[in-house]
């Protein structure tokens, strides 16, 4: 396993290398346990498929519910996979090493979050058209949904990282994480699922997409710092 470098310089030039180092490392580790990734994706698929069984196969109702269901399932899948971000490293002491490395911790965490999104969020985005067919969603709705998920799932990873760092090593970890993060997810859910509704109502997608985009920018800048602070708190 690659160890944290000790001779990198501590200036702004260390940010991107830091991101890349953490990204490459986490991707390698994630791809080694492909089965785990597959299981998480399967969870997503199963949850999405449960709703029609619980409600009705009636076409119009499903079409209305579809975006919401896919989004809620994405939230749940994100929650399920978030502990993976820090827990394994924390358990074997690597996280402390990472925190001590000369790379800025927010940069390293950004890399981890990016890896998390590539292995959790992106597959969800790519699966959306397939699952959308279960819900009788038409092409326009599916395209909107994919765009919304593309912008929204990174936000889920970014905000989720803060929660994962705060709850590192705590008892009741998973449910506690859900309680902390889900209220913060609500705006993403509203604007993400609402994008499809807006398109269907003829209002166009611009407003929702702009808000999601703005949210993504703010989260991308702020969340790594908050998560870094939370990691340091957990490690002390």
């Amino acid at each position, binding site marked *: 396993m690659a160890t944290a470098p000790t001779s990198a310089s501590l200036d702004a030039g260390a940010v991107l290398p830091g991101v890349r180092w953490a990204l490459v490392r986490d991707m390698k580790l994630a791809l080694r346990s492909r089965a785990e990734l597959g299981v998480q994706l399967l969870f997503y698929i199963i949850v999405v498929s449960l709703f029609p069984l619980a409600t009705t196969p009636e076409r119009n109702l499903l079409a209305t519910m579809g975006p919401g269901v896919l989004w809620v399932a994405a939230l749940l899948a994100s929650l399920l996979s978030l502990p993976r971000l820090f827990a394994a490293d924390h358990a074997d002491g690597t996280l402390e090493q990472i925190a001590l490395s000369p790379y800025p911790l927010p940069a390293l965490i950004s890399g981890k979050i990016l890896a998390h999104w590539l292995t959790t969020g992106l597959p969800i985005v790519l699966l959306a058209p397939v699952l959308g067919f279960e819900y009788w969603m038409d092409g326009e709705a599916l395209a909107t949904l994919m765009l919304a998920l593309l912008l929204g799932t990174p936000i889920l990873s970014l905000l989720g990282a*803060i929660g994962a760092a*705060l*709850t590192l090593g*705590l*008892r*009741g970890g998973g449910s*506690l994480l859900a*309680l*902390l993060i*889900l*209220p*913060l997810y*609500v*705006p993403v859910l*509203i*604007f993400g699922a*609402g994008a499809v*509704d*807006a398109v269907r*109502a003829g209002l166009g997608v611009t407003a929702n997409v702009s808000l999601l985009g703005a*949210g993504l920018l703010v989260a991308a800048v702020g969340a790594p710092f*908050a998560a870094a*602070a*939370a990691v340091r*708190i*957990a490690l*002390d």
Partner: protein
Amino acid sequence: MASGNWYRYSSPATFYPLAGKMIPWFGWSAAVLAAIGLWIGLGIAPTDFQQGEAYRIIFIHVPSAWLSMFLYLVMAAWGALFLGFNTRLSAMMAQSLAPTGALMTFIALVTGSFWGRPTWGTYWAWDARMTSELILLFLYLGVMALRNAIDDPRRADRACAVLSLVGAVNVPIIYFSVKWWNTLHQGSSVSLTAAPKMAMTMLTGMLIMSFAAWFYSIAVCLYRVRVIMLERERGSAWVGELQEVEAR
């Protein structure tokens, strides 16, 4: 400014007796204000044309809703002070605010529900304000749950400070998003807790009740912070020398 004086009070040992003196002042002020407010709200203010007497719930619903949001911001502010200056007392103040804030949110939700039933025919409607209050309740419970899950008080202080700051930043975003969602789905934007046109007396009553609620919250939180100080500093010399501790 004698900043040395202020720093004195940032130590639990000096703040403990000061808080003790402040509690009766705020408590009695709250009681008096509540008496006046209730007199206005239940007695003097005229019956509303549309909502009848049911609108009188406004005199607790609105103050509690305002307090629920205000207390969260104050809690986050104490958290920020703690992260900035590392004063234990700031963290303790934040810790003492959470339960009161959560209860204010609970009261706002329950009274809103009781108000909605006779006026709009339903105990719950997913309108913007009530939904935001619900999420605010979850935010409070989250901070309390996190505090409860962490054994080390120092880590708990810092984690809860970060969490409440992240929450505080998100509260306006959440409110805005819920409002957006609500107007999109209910054209005429029904509000479960829409206030009637406000006569001057109604407004005055609401304002006075808000101050009553605020002073009550201050009194209870000062009371609770004293308890927290006792719990957390229990082996220390100043606690041992307290009159109420030596008295047995």
